[in-house]
């Protein structure tokens, strides 16, 4: 009886629980205090916030269980729609969990577990309220992935951004504040543009519900579609800034390389929010069925993605420190993913989704690994210059080789499979020469960049000093090591489970193309794909005028 009730409860409310769990735990953590006090400014933690750490870890694990449950449901073909407050879409806000959303949720929360575990080694006491902010960040991410409303997407963007503003400067220091100012100002300007784009789209279609929009954009005449395209392009700029594409990626290396390691690892997901939004809006809404505004970003997305990849690997070759190198590799991975998205075929989208899961995991692992290495190199830290040898060259060396081979895409690691799928899906496209050249060339240059970095770090060593400098930021212990290995292992598991994973992404890409089923699920009671709602609202004498009736006030 009780299990049945619980089962039904969870099945119904799981989409919103995914957002509410981090919200409530975050608030609870704020109320509990962080156990650090004002001592954080002196970088001297007083005690260990054991209770907070336990609660935080338990909540993240629970969230991961929820996310996997949602993914299992979605895998069975369920398109879960949750109407907030019981209001029918498109008048109320809905949460929609399809395969893509569920996959992003599972990826985020699975990545959050080892990253948070790593942070509990010591990073969480080097600033105020780390655990609470981590949860607010997860809340924003989850919300952005589950929402079925564009304005709601904006709100969740703001939540995840404001948490990330604070997390970026976690640990303080002049360098972090400098990068923080740049990051915050850029993102606030982008938020303003987001609103402009949304307002244009709302003014033309009278709706911001994603399912409703997908139906409505097709009905606009050519004249109105011009404005609509402007709105869509403005949104591409906004999402492009988050995803870090040319020419909007300049902020990323500076910000990610100064952020504390667990924060940078969590931020590996942040660029993917931009990619997710591009898929949701420019493939889902402005896809092939969008009438005059169909495939509005198609001429732009693929070239921009390829140029991003090329510039990012060049940046990686020129990087002066390991963290900067990894930051540039993050951008390169986004470029490869968006190249897959920019081909605008189901097969390429599926390949891009597969590669996105893999690259997020391996980039996050690399950020953690960089700090582990930096801690053992004395004053040189992660800078690429000769220094004292690391204390555990074999272990760290092997981890570096594994991560480097994954990110460069060497067989048999998952990066290889992802890139192979993208190459394969591009073979029928007219741009396939460019895609092949860039993806293969980028892999090769990535390898050279990492080989150069690895040689300097592990082989180009100075004589051992008499006394080893004490490690400061994070005690080098089994926990940080295990968390990093765990993340790397997830990447390896992904190779072992490539077949089911590929089936899943195939189904996810097919589901994205099927706008009729999406409309059916969200707007079912109004007639699904045939839904005719009474907007855009153009006023009138006490009655609502149908958009196509030609009557103007």
């Amino acid at each position, binding site marked *: 009886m009780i299990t049945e009730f619980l089962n039904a409860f969870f099945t119904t409310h799981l989409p919103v629980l995914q957002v509410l769990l981090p919200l409530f735990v975050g608030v609870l953590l704020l109320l509990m205090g962080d156990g650090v006090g004002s001592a954080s400014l002196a970088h001297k933690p007083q005690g260990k916030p054991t209770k907070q750490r336990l609660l935080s870890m338990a909540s993240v694990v629970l969230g991961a269980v929820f996310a996997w449950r949602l993914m299992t449901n979605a895998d069975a073909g369920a398109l879960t729609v949750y109407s907030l407050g019981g209001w029918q879409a498109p008048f109320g806000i809905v949460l929609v969990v399809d395969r893509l959303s569920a996959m992003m949720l599972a990826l985020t929360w699975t990545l959050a577990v080892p990253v948070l575990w790593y942070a509990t080694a010591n990073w969480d006491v080097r600033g105020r309220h780390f655990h609470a902010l981590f949860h607010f960040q997860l809340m924003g991410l989850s919300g952005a992935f589950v929402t079925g409303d564009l304005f709601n997407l904006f709100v969740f963007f703001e939540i995840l951004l*404001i948490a990330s503003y604070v997390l970026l400067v976690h640990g*303080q220091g002049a360098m972090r*504040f400098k990068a923080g*100012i740049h990051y915050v100002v850029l993102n*606030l300007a982008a938020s*303003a543009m987001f609103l402009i784009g949304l307002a244009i789209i*709302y003014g033309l279609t009278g709706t911001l519900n994603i399912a409703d929009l997908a139906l409505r954009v097709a009905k606009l005449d050519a004249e109105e579609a011009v404005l609509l395209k402007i709105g869509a392009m403005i949104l591409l700029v906004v999402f492009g800034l988050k995803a870090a594409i040319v020419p909007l990626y300049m902020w990323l290396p500076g910000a990610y390389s100064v952020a504390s390691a667990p924060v940078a690892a969590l931020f590996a997901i942040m660029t993917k929010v931009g990619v997710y939004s591009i898929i949701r809006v420019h493939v889902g809404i402005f896809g092939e069925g969008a009438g005059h505004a169909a495939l509005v970003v198609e001429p732009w997305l693929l070239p921009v993605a390829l140029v991003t990849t090329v510039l990012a690997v060049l940046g990686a070759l020129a990087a002066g420190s390991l963290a900067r190198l990894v930051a540039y590799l993050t951008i390169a991975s986004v470029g490869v993913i968006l190249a897959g998205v920019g081909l605008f075929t189901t097969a390429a989208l599926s390949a891009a989704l597969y590669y996105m899961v893999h690259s997020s995991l391996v980039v996050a692992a690399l950020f953690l690994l960089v700090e582990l290495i930096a801690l053992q190199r004395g004053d040189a830290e992660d800078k690429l210059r000769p220094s004292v040898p690391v204390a555990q060259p074999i272990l760290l060396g092997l981890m570096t080789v594994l991560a480097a081979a994954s990110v460069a895409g060497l067989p048999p690691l998952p990066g290889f499979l992802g890139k192979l799928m993208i190459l394969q899906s591009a073979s029928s496209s007219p741009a396939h020469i460019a895609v092949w050249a860039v993806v293969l060339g980028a892999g090769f240059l990535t390898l050279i960049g990492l080989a150069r970095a690895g040689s300097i770090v592990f082989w180009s060593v100075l004589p051992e000093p008499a006394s080893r400098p004490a490690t400061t930021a994070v005690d080098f212990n089994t926990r940080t090591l295990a968390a990093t290995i765990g993340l790397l292992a997830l990447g390896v598991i992904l190779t072992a489970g490539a077949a089911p994973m590929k089936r899943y992404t195939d189904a996810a890409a097919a589901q994205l193309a099927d706008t009729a089923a999406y409309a059916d699920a969200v707007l079912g009671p109004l007639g699904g794909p045939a839904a005719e709602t009474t907007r855009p609202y*153009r006023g009138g004498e*006490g009655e609502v005028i149908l958009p196509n009736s030609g009557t103007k006030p």
Partner: protein
Amino acid sequence: MMSLEFLVASGIGVVTATGIYLILRGRTWPVVLGLSLLGYAVNVFIFAMGRLWQDAAPILSAEGSVADPLPQALVLTAIVIGFATTGFVIELALRSRHETGTDHVDGQEPERTTEVRDNA
């Protein structure tokens, strides 16, 4: 006579241009002001996307024309978020000034060329 549409549109344009100019300045205070101005312009823009109405009731009534209520709700949300982020960015700018010793957005004073120094 100038139409209401022209006045609102050009007003939004002027405020946006001012905001962009200020965002491109090198000191944090003008940048914060620029972000606020940009926020105001965007808020009015959202409002205008519900079309401009005269003598229309703000909520649904049995008779008379009614203004589109949704942009009003959207703009309220945008104002609240904009207010919070402005508060945050001011605090961040102050901390950055405290940590780096300068209010330049790059955290350091720009290197002056000889020419500029001579003129000064």
